[in-house]
């Protein structure tokens, strides 16, 4: 054994034979590993294989070569759905990250009632997607909805179709997602803010820096790592967009707000075409992987 290995690894091993240790270590890992291989790794592989077949639930599937992928290239609904998801990723990521940062600054500031404020911002995250969309659907409804009622009282005459027209439907999906999930980002930022030593701010005050200068020269640089993480998590979360449009707009009007996960879901569980759905799932997997890779490279460069 090399001397540079972590010392704590030696503690237990040094008194026992290595073979015995190998076995007991694997016994510790086994329950997790079996579940992980069966329900995570195996589906990825079998999904990849299915993507080359004419897989239909209940019907014998045949090898189809690249058929599904060639069909995908020509399928305008695929491109539309992928485009919708990308649009949502590009718009929602900065929005929800910036609001998360703003809320964490509010909650971390020297005002009274921060526990109340924190709970208020976070509590929607505790709701399920079904409850969240159900509340908002009734709020955003035309004629009988709460929001239009409020706007009418404020003098707005028009009936606004929040969910029935684009781009308003997208705006609604964005607002609902922001309301529902911003608390999660806020907590991550808050943990980062509390790590910054007060002495930095005190020193800056002595130098006569104002709040904005302190934010730019201390807070933001100190949060670099947290920002990179939150952006990463938000990108993946936004790629998974499904429940909000599915339950709010059904992907409509038409298919204008249908994200890729919904198209996969409908292809698999409405048209029962598991081959094509698997092919699209695999592409989604690759696209998310690519975004993760690019983001990691970029944030490494920024962090130096």
């Amino acid at each position, binding site marked *: 054994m090399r001397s540079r290995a972590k010392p704590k690894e030696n*503690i237990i091993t040094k008194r026992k034979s290595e073979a015995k240790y190998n076995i007991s270590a694997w016994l510790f890992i086994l329950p997790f590993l079996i579940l992980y291989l069966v329900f995570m790794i195996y589906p990825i592989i079998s999904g990849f294989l299915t993507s080359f077949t004419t897989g239909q639930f209940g019907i014998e599937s045949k090898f189809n070569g690249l058929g599904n992928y060639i069909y995908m290239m020509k399928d305008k609904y695929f491109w539309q759905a992928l485009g919708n998801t990308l649009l949502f990723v590009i718009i929602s990521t900065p929005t929800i990250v910036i609001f998360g940062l703003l809320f964490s600054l509010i909650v971390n500031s020297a005002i009274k009632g921060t526990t109340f404020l924190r709970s208020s911002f976070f509590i929607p995250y505790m709701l399920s997607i079904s409850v969240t969309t159900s509340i908002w659907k009734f709020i955003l409804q035309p004629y009988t909805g709460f929001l239009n009622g409020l706007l009418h009282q404020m003098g707005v005459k028009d009936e606004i179709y929040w969910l029935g027209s684009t781009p308003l439907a997208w705006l609604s999906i964005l607002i609902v997602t922001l309301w529902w999930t911003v608390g999660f980002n806020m907590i991550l930022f808050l943990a980062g803010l509390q790590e910054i030593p007060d002495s930095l701010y005190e020193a800056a005050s002595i130098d006569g820096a104002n709040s904005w200068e302190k934010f730019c020269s201390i807070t933001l640089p100190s949060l670099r790592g947290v920002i990179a993480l939150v952006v990463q998590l938000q990108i993946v979360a936004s790629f998974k967009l499904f429940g909000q449009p599915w339950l709010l707009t059904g992907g409509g009007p038409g298919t204008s707000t249908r994200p890729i996960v919904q198209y996969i879901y409908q292809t698999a*569980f409405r048209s029962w075409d*598991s081959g094509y759905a698997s092919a699209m799932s695999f592409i989604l997997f690759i696209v998310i992987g690519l975004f993760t890779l690019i983001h990691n490279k970029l944030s490494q460069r920024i962090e130096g």
Partner: protein
Amino acid sequence: MINKRKVLKMLQYIFSYAIALIWLIPLLWMFITSFKPDGSVVTIISELIKPPFTLHNYIKVKNTSMIPRWALNSIIVAAIQTAATLMVCSLTAFALSQMKFRGKKLVLVLITAGLFIPAESIVVPLYTFIVKLGWVNTYKALILPGIAMPLGVLILKQFYDSMPKELTEAASIDGASPFKIWSRILFPLSRTSLASLGIFAFIQSWNNYLWPLVAASDTSMMTLPVAVPTFQSSFNTSFSVPMAANVLASLPALIVFLIFQKNIVKGIAMTGIK
């Protein structure tokens, strides 16, 4: 100078509390509407907060839906999944942190890669798999796929890595087996981490939507997030009954939040540790 600071402070208060109010309005609206008689005006605030209030909507939800059964399903799935997740993740994290064995690096790489596999991209093959096993509409299908949580292993491994080595060293010299060291020393010591991780896992499981939507088509096997929209779809024009169903479906999670607020916040903050 002092006046300017006072004004700024006041603006800060108004701004902060105004946003908090906006964030709470949808929830307050849900609560109040759920107690309004069917057909009342719920779009004008002054009308909304005026009596009469009634429990009729809740009775209607109870009589026309299987909500106790759905809640039971949700509790069974989330509770078993959480307990199993904590157990298998802790065992794995212990071995990865404290023991030396061949293939350790590979296991670690495999688990870390799992962080980037979105559940959405394996739903289709996973469903094909449980169809083959004949597991559609069973608790097994709802529970088992969610147990192996890579994030849980990595968080707990980090905690075990931070333990002073004297602890396990002393026990090892006294002849304690690795299993004893885990069960008597490190597992109990990681109580707080486990609690935070557990609550986080519970919320995720409780609110999980896509997988239960696929795996349970039978009304009696549905969890709350899947069942509630199905139930509500028959009340297109009524506000009050759907909101009562929403309140009932959210109550357990909101109670968990009020009790374990600190742990939840800690649990999420932990996911940020790299």
